[in-house]
């Protein structure tokens, strides 16, 4: 089995080398595209884009207690900041020991932070870093409440990539789960969380 795999490898590489017998010339990649956003108000752009894709945006940490008061059973990563949960009276499920997929499916919502947010596309990026937990946590519960600090917001996608560690498992989220498979009309809500709520907090505060 191993021997066969090795020979397939060598044969494919040899075929590809033969295919390049014409020695194509080196390629200079032109990178004339924008790498930094010069829009003055990134946050307004972000809110517009999030709402365009049917995410619900709340402003300020004070919005959290009211939001969480509707949540009976809440999943959180083990390192969730204590002040996000201030006054929470529902059933709290920390992901330690790791909650099984079936257990996660029984919960009403998950509360996490994020790593970076791209204003231009309304994209929230999770990298399993602080206050985010592992990937299953933000996938199985039907409602995802995500806290975004304003200093996590960048304008364009190239700016976001420079802040990410490629070796971390990355999940990019742009609105709630959706499909365009029926007559190419976008319908929100399939397998991922059907509700995405963003709580924007000023990092100065």
């Amino acid at each position, binding site marked *: 089995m191993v021997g066969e795999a090795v020979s397939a490898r060598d044969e494919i590489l*040899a075929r590809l080398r033969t295919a390049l017998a014409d020695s194509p010339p080196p390629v200079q990649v032109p990178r004339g595209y924008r790498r930094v956003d010069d829009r003055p108000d990134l946050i307004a752009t972000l809110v517009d884009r999030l709402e365009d894709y049917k995410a619900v945006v709340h402003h300020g940490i004070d919005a959290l207690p009211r939001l969480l008061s509707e949540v009976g059973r809440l999943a959180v990563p083990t390192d969730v900041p204590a002040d996000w949960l201030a006054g929470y009276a529902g059933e709290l499920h920390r992901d330690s020991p790791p909650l099984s*997929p079936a257990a996660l499916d029984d919960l009403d919502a998950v509360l996490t932070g994020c790593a970076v947010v791209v204003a231009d596309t309304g994209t929230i990026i999770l990298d399993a870093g602080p206050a985010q937990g592992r990937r299953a946590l933000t996938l199985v519960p039907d409602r995802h409440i995500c806290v975004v600090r304003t200093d996590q917001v960048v304008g364009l996608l190239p700016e976001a990539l420079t802040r990410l560690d490629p070796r971390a498992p990355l999940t990019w989220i742009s609105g709630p789960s959706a499909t365009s498979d029926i007559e190419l009309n976008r319908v929100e809500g399939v397998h991922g969380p059907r509700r995405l709520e963003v709580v924007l907090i000023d990092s100065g505060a």
Partner: protein
Amino acid sequence: MSRPVAPATGSGRIRTPLPFPTAAKPAVADTQLRANLHRATRTIRAKRARVVDEVPDWEALRDAGAAIKADVQRRLPELLEQFEASATAAGATVHWARDAAEACRIVVALTQAAGADEVVKVKSMATQEIELNEALEAAGIAAYETDLAELIVQLGDDTPSHILVPAIHYNRAQIREIFQRRMADAPADLSDEPAALAEAARAHLRRRFLSARVAVSGANFAVADTGTLVVVESEGNGRMCLTLPETLISVVGVEKLLPTFTDLEVFLQLLPRSSTGERMNPYTSMWTGVTPGDGPQDVHVVLVDNGRSAVLADPVGRPALSCIRCSACLNVCPVYERAGGHAYGSVYPGPIGAILSPQLTGVADNASLPYASTLCGACYDVCPVKINIPEILVHLRQQAPHPPAERAAMRVLSWVMRSPRRWAAALRLARVGAGPLGAYRERRTGARTLRRLPWPASAWTRSRDLPLPAPQTFREWWGKQ
């Protein structure tokens, strides 16, 4: 290794069982199908145009995308070795498959080794190409498609007809009918509202996701310097498959490589806007080997040649390997809109299929496909990686055995002629179409004559030397002939 080894053509679902015009006949006669395709492609064209227009540096992104892919092609062997080393260092196991059958054997063996008799699948062109579901079934392993459109196609015992939306040929009423007939747990009062249909799919697949042990995916991109794989999706079925099972097997064509992680900044801007017409698709997942305690702990990558080395060997046709499967070229193609995806036989329909399938199999095996085009050039204009599809089509036609191809062109021409609207469209397209072909002849001969009109009119004019039409007066010129 110094022994020269010839590039090899591929196998699997990439051959047209029938010549294109014959295969297109039922679709052309099916008015419901034509209406579904017309509505869907018109919707997606408008959405794409809106989100592309709001990007001021779109052309710069296309230029970068095309150049990065050209660089990948010229350095493919070394980048594959680099990818293998990075992915292996991160805990993945990398396998190599010369052709479809070998790729299927590897996936079947890995699934059996994991002790599973079923797999959940993320939509993937590569696994369609190698006919993996059939191979799994033959080995007693059930394969469940989880993408909504793939699920519709699978339940309907049909084959995909579009790269992005495999069920594009069905409308909502037809989808409801398939669900009621084949989905045991579909609600009795299921309506044909897209939201209700999506809800039914969610309920149907939920338990399967939560208990699946093996998932099979493709990848949109494979990053050489980090060993990262990327899957772009909408519904969350991809995240379910890529996150919950213990074993993850990804089948990846060797052309999917990008040199660096930074290169994603180009392609993740080009792909969503070109494919679903969104600024960004709802979900993109990236993983690099194994992350302890998070996601699959048994991660495999199967790198597949299956004819790609043969495509690489042709310097003119090589850019077909740049394709990122966005499907924008299908959505603007007048021939695709009329003939539908099934007429192309191969899993790759539309303009990209017309150049990729014949190159993967060798032109002799797919000789009618390079003629499944009016050379209007719309595909080239929308292609995010600037593949000059008309130029490659002309190049491939020169390799096709001529008499049957001419007959094929003749038949499609008569089909086009049967409707005044089609005819007007063909003329409009032919006018634009004289562009690439005319330019090509001018380059070669320096003459302002066109020995052959762009297909399908070419079948009528091949014996005459015609003056090249002035672009703006093609219709008048044609009227005088």
